[in-house]
């Protein structure tokens, strides 16, 4: 079918719930209302109120409940309405989801997915625009996935639901409906932990993910530079090989992310390049990121976001070094 990202999510959930009776979808407003972004529309009608469940406004219990369901053999897919409301459940991720397999030496495991829309640009209220993938990526045991296309969204979400371990699935809500492409009907997987090369080039490596792929590709196109553009797709575990191979080829790199700069995932990427390709570098790696501030409210958020001109300027700096 031809689908947007939000439709791809819905299709992935439908496909998987059809295939695997253990899959359960729950969260705030996901059943009767079909989700505030309509990601879960129609699921309750199709799969019943036992498998698609509206919960109380309880992020801790949503995530912790998902862990418990997974322990009992179910396949929970929990929705957190906006990623800005995942921090209340941070402890459930750190203390249980990420390490219950480890704690029980493989006896138990927590195959669950926490889906949540992240990022700015939709003119919402405070706490509706955050990008905290860096903090989640730092937690050993958690997989952190951020798709950027409809095809990858379905394939990665399918993979997340098949995955034997917990996956935090960050959805680029800013582009939920802005891209559309053909996606297969079946439960195909886009493997977690593998980056995609969106564009092949020789002069510079540009690395990004999620909602930032669009302005990144736009900036590259406008500049007309010969760039390798890597879409990480998975933050953790990080596909170091793709990054390092590309930088060895180009000798220059730019990382683009929406999260605040300091302590963001850009640091890990630079450290990876340092580890394995330092001597290939012909210029310092540029980080084009959100600033070290909370995402501004809607009247100012565009100044915060890495828009194409800012990305282009960064690429130019690296090329001209």
């Amino acid at each position, binding site marked *: 079918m031809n689908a947007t990202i939000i439709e791809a999510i819905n299709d992935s959930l439908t496909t998987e719930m059809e295939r695997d009776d253990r899959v359960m979808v729950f969260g705030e407003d996901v059943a*009767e209302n079909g989700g505030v972004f309509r990601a879960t529309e129609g699921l309750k009608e199709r799969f019943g109120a036992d498998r698609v469940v509206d919960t109380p*406004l309880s992020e*801790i219990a949503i995530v912790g409940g998902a862990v418990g369901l997974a322990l009992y053999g179910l396949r929970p897919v929990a929705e957190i309405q906006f990623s800005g409301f995942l921090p209340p459940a941070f402890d459930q991720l750190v203390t249980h989801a990420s390490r219950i397999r480890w704690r029980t030496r493989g006896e138990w495991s927590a195959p669950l997915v926490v889906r949540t829309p992240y990022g700015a640009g939709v003119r919402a209220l405070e706490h509706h625009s955050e990008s905290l993938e860096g903090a989640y990526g730092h937690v050993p045991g958690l997989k952190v996935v951020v798709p950027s296309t409809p095809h990858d969204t379905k394939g990665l979400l399918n993979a997340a639901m098949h995955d034997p371990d917990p996956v935090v699935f960050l959805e680029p809500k800013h582009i939920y409906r802005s891209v559309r492409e053909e996606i297969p009907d079946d439960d195909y997987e886009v493997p977690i932990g593998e980056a995609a090369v969106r564009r092949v080039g020789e002069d510079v490596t540009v690395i990004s993910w999620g909602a930032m792929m669009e302005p990144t590709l736009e900036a590259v196109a406008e500049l007309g530079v010969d760039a390798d553009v890597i879409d990480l797709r998975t933050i953790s575990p990080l596909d170091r090989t793709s990054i390092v191979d590309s930088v060895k080829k180009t000798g220059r790199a730019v990382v683009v992310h929406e999260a605040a700069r300091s302590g963001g995932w850009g640091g890990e990427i630079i450290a990876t390049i340092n580890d394995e390709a330092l001597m290939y570098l012909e210029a310092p790696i540029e980080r084009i990121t959100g*600033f070290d501030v909370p995402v501004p409210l809607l009247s100012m958020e565009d100044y915060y976001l890495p828009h194409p001109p800012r990305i282009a300027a960064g690429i130019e700096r690296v090329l001209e070094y």
Partner: protein
Amino acid sequence: MTVVTANTGTTRAESFTVRASAETNRAALCLYARRLVSWYEIAMSNNLSRQALDLDAPWISQDTLSVEPHQIVAPDGSYDPDDVPDLTEEAFLDLYRWMLFEKRYAERMVKLQRRGELGTFGSSRGHEASIVGSGYPLQDSDWLLGMGRETMAMLQQGVSLRDMILFWRGVDDAQQFLAQENCMIGISVGGYLPLVTGIGWGMKRMDADAVVTAHFGDGATSTGASHEAINFAGVLDIPAIFYCQNNQWAISTPFEKQTNANSIAQRAIGYGVDGVRVDGNDVLAVHAAMTEARELASQGNPVIVEGLTYRRGGHSTNDDPSRYRDDEERETWIDRDPIERYERFLQSEGLWDRVDRETLLEGIDEEFDAAHEAADAYGPRDVEEIFVHLYDEMPPALEAQMASFGEFLETYPEMDEHVDRRPKG
């Protein structure tokens, strides 16, 4: 009694009776929640007697406690004169004007949003009595942290209408002006209740003649933060009022899916604080309860006040309630309109003659127009705004980010194309 001897695996369940009365009660609650009958009737019949159960231990359950909602004026406008609070005529009329204001404000704001002038907006239609009655008894020194659906209560604390418009436009400065009046809007549901407890703790420590109020919804009561905050306040004798506007919906989630308890007020029992449920569409009842609440709180007894009301519109301008609830239900609540009920009261009291509804509305519209103009006139803000005020003293790395972004904007005017909203009110 049932005896299960686990280690031998034998279960002798012969004498165990299915808990029929609990089921009956649950059914009544659901009925209530589904509002197929008036909540007044159900609320009054909460005290269902539990059928004889074959349980030996003294279990406590929903049947154990009956929470009677406080009501002064009935939906049909009738009341017992003895119950009417001893307010001045001016105060009675004032309450009316505030309710009308809240209603008109919500209508005008929805229109502004439809015209693209606001980001989103959460209407308070239906909550007028709950908001006005809960805000009116507060004092100037009191603090009020809410969630966005208590505007007139904030205006009573001194917040200006312009700033509410700025708030919904996503102008950062709005919360500055709210803060100047000891108010804040917390967008992350329930998460600000611990702050409320902390502020009240400060009041206690400083021996201030003040209380702090949290305004929040039924949804917020399911958060861990709300639990810790209220329990903590109970232990430390903190002068805090936890005012829950139970409008029976959290976006699409009805109250009976929010908790299996019959009321929020009864949480008080579990925290060792005092609690009361009031008819949130009866402004006098809300006012009376909040007045008592404020007295209790100032004496170091934190309280939960639950105003039972109904969200007549969508959760916000983004929401389409027809996806998840019946028109029928909404109709029922139109009949229980808080403003019309109060009008009947004013008529009975002979005060209605003193009300010129049209003139009041004109005055309110003028106030709104002026606020709207002031919001439009709110000066353009500098891009630096996104960097400042995070720290008292900006750290060097952030200074550098600000400086280089400033240079960037000068060098790359094409950035302008990507800025959708101009940084002004």
